[in-house]
């Protein structure tokens, strides 16, 4: 019984994964391509899919140029220092100069944005953040995407990108399966905008059992943005730059509004301020250019997120935990108390549940904080993702190859977590990137770049066999054993995920080893991942739900491999507090002030690593400083 094949032909723009990036792409594509065929393929239901499914209580990327608050370059400098210099400033500038128009549209569409009663301006949480009542953020942007798209295919797990059989290195669509019906879906398309997500659950989580679902990034963020693009042979960048989050313990409730709006602060188990005592040592590791508490005190310059993590980790390791968030003062104000709770209900309900269950009322006691397991993504305080072209009017030659947000595969575009080097885009910036990618994709088609695409029957049939193989394997070997899950001939997706998490944790700098790794450990990691890849050929799925988990695992595995290759390549500790290279414990600007770029050869599975130059946006003032320094 072979699955039914359903072909959707003549698509101009296929949006693979419709979170904030994908919905932005589908929406905008209709304006520049009014006669084009726009199709969305999404593994869940676009009304509640992606990282914003649950809602948000803040939009973390808004310039406020209309009120003279910030210019795009201010945001670039902020993201640059937060990521220890390693960002794509062309892409960041481009996102920042357009993001306000996205947010103003959201307000038009009905997204409740809080206002400052005195000024009438958007209520600021911090310099870049504005506060919203965003329970329905995702349904609202999904509505916009549905108005623009010709067809929305929900519950399609996209497993592979299709490549043109006529011209090398050109996109031709994507394939996947319907998680409900089990049908095989083929999308033949002139362009693909990859809006798929980053990766949770590739490093062993701190929680065990049921609590493993309470990861910081959504459990359905399966690294598919990376799995899809790496497997097709796209170049990736900054994949070593995983992120560790300092959050409320166990529930991983957000701390942004607490720090910025409620003015709460942290202290160690003895009630002391602890951060500053770690700064001199840290300054020795990373240099004064990256950590200068005095300058940070005087100006808007932030202490990089990873370095604040480092202080917290070190303080706990020194035996002075737990770290507390001091909420008791702020929560005496009923308005601030309401903001504190609604912040969770709007985006991390689980934290409210946990506090209710443990009788933690932040009015009466200061809740605990912890640092999470690492995550791989590209839109928060980290910039993993694909190596994408920038806009023609900003990007230097090394960063530009024809179309904004196009990857190194022709006709493959990206938005959100898929684009590397663009941290701090968050929800609004990801949607904006989708819009930019959509305009460029329409231009690519109008320029005739997608003419004459051929997809062979062989490619389609080969993928079909590959996709459904785990179900076939289950049928073949299930009766070899009496019952249960222990088989000598297959592993199930959950068993595979456990193995992946354990080896990434222990060898690639997870939480149980204090985020520490080195060259020897990373080489073992690669070896184990390679053997695991062989076992992934023996994955068994007893039903369509397990088949979904099987493909998520394959995407997570490929993401992990790429992360390990990049971590091995960058021989320095660039982000103490995210991870440490024990054999190179210092930041090394002389050799590593570069972006790391990788490509996996789809034929051989071999990785090629290279260094790409890091360009910075320079204003007059910095230019003068640089000259003076020389």
């Amino acid at each position: 019984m072979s699955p039914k094949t359903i072909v959707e032909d003549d698509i101009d723009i296929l949006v693979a994964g419709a979170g904030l990036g994908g919905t932005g792409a589908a929406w905008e594509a209709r304006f520049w391509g009014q006669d084009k065929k726009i199709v969305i393929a999404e593994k869940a239901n676009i009304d509640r899919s992606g990282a914003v499914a649950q809602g948000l209580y803040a939009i973390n990327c808004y310039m406020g140029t209309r009120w003279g608050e910030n210019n795009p370059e201010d945001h670039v400098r902020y993201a640059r220092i937060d990521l220890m210099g390693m960002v794509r400033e062309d892409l960041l500038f481009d996102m920042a100069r357009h993001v306000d128009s996205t947010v103003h549209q959201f307000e038009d569409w009905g997204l409740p944005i809080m206002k400052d009663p005195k000024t009438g301006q958007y209520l600021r949480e911090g310099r870049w953040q504005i506060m919203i009542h965003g329970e329905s953020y995702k349904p609202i942007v999904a509505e916009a995407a549905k108005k623009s798209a010709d067809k929305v295919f929900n519950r399609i797990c996209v497993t592979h990108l299709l490549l043109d059989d006529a011209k090398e290195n050109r996109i031709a669509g994507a394939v996947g399966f319907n998680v409900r019906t089990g049908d095989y879906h083929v999308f033949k398309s002139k362009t693909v905008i990859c809006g798929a997500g980053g990766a949770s659950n590739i490093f062993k989580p701190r929680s065990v059992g049921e609590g493993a679902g309470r990861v910081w990034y959504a459990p359905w963020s399966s690294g598919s943005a990376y799995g899809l693009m790496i497997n097709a042979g796209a170049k990736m960048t900054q994949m070593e730059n995983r992120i560790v989050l300092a959050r409320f313990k166990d529930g991983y409730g957000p701390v942004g509004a607490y720090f910025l709006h409620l003015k709460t602060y942290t202290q160690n188990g003895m009630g002391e301020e602890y951060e500053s005592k770690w700064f001199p040592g840290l300054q020795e590791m990373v240099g004064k250019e990256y950590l200068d508490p005095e300058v940070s005190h005087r100006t808007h310059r932030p202490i990089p997120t990873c370095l604040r993590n480092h202080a917290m980790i070190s303080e706990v390791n020194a035996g002075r935990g737990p770290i507390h968030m001091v909420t008791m003062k702020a929560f005496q104000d009923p308005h601030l108390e309401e903001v504190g709770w609604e912040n969770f209900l709007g985006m991390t309900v689980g934290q409210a549940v946990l506090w209710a269950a443990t009788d933690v009322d932040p009015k009466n006691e200061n809740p605990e904080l912890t640092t999470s397991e690492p995550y791989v993504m590209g839109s928060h305080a980290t910039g993993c993702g694909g190596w994408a072209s920038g806009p023609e009017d900003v990007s230097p030659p090394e960063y530009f190859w024809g179309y904004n947000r196009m990857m190194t595969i022709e006709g493959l575009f990206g938005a959100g977590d898929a684009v590397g080097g663009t941290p701090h885009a968050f929800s609004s910036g990801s949607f904006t990137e989708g819009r930019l990618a959509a305009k460029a994709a329409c231009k690519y088609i109008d320029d005739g770049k997608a003419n004459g695409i051929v997809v062979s029957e062989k490619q389609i049939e080969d993928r079909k066999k590959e996709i459904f193989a785990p179900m076939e394997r289950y049928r073949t070997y299930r009766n070899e054993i009496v019952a249960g899950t222990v088989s000598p001939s297959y592993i199930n997706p959950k068993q595979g995920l456990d193995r992946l998490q354990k080896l990434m944790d222990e060898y690639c700098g997870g939480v149980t080893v204090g985020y520490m790794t080195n060259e020897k450990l990373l080489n073992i990691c690669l070896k184990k991942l390679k053997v695991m890849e062989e076992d992934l050929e023996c994955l068994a799925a007893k039903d369509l739900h397990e088949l979904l988990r099987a493909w998520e695992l394959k995407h997570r595995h490929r993401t992990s491999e790429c992360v390990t290759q990049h971590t091995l390549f960058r021989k320095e500790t660039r982000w103490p507090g995210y991870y440490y290279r024990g054999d190179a414990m210092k930041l090394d600007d002389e050799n590593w002030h570069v972006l790391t770029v990788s490509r996996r050869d789809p034929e051989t599975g071999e990785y090629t690593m290279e260094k790409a130059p890091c360009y910075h946006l320079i204003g007059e003032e910095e230019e003068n400083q640089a000259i003076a320094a020389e």
Partner: protein
Amino acid sequence: MPTFVYMTRCDGCGHCVDICPSDIMHIDKVNRRAYNIEPDMCWECYSCVKACPQNAIDARGYADFAPLGHSVRVRREEEKGTISWRIKFRNGTEKNFLSPITTKPWGEYIPKLKDAAAPTKDMRDSQHLYSEPKYIRMDEGEVHTLESNGLKMKKGVYY
């Protein structure tokens, strides 16, 4: 807190199955009602709880760190444009919250771009997105460029 479904309230309508981002709300073949098939892949996002017309779905804190005896209930009213929450602590403390979820009638203010005036060649060649430059600053100001902001891109370390 993984979700669970009350046997006496669920009528097996499948709204939760349809909306769950993690594909873990399924219909039990024997009881013909929904249940959570994979609690450790549940994010407690409450999408199913909000979508259930029978209020049959609730959440119970993750067993590995949350003690019993609490509840967080929600009611999302699309027509009213509000969401209301009731939190009950293990010790009996209760807190209630009410927030707007939209300021406009659902979907009416999102334009259909197929019917918008078609973009000109100039617009296509510019850096503008739909509704720009107007929507960037809500005035006649132009989109920022390196030139307009007195910037350059330079290779190497400059700080």
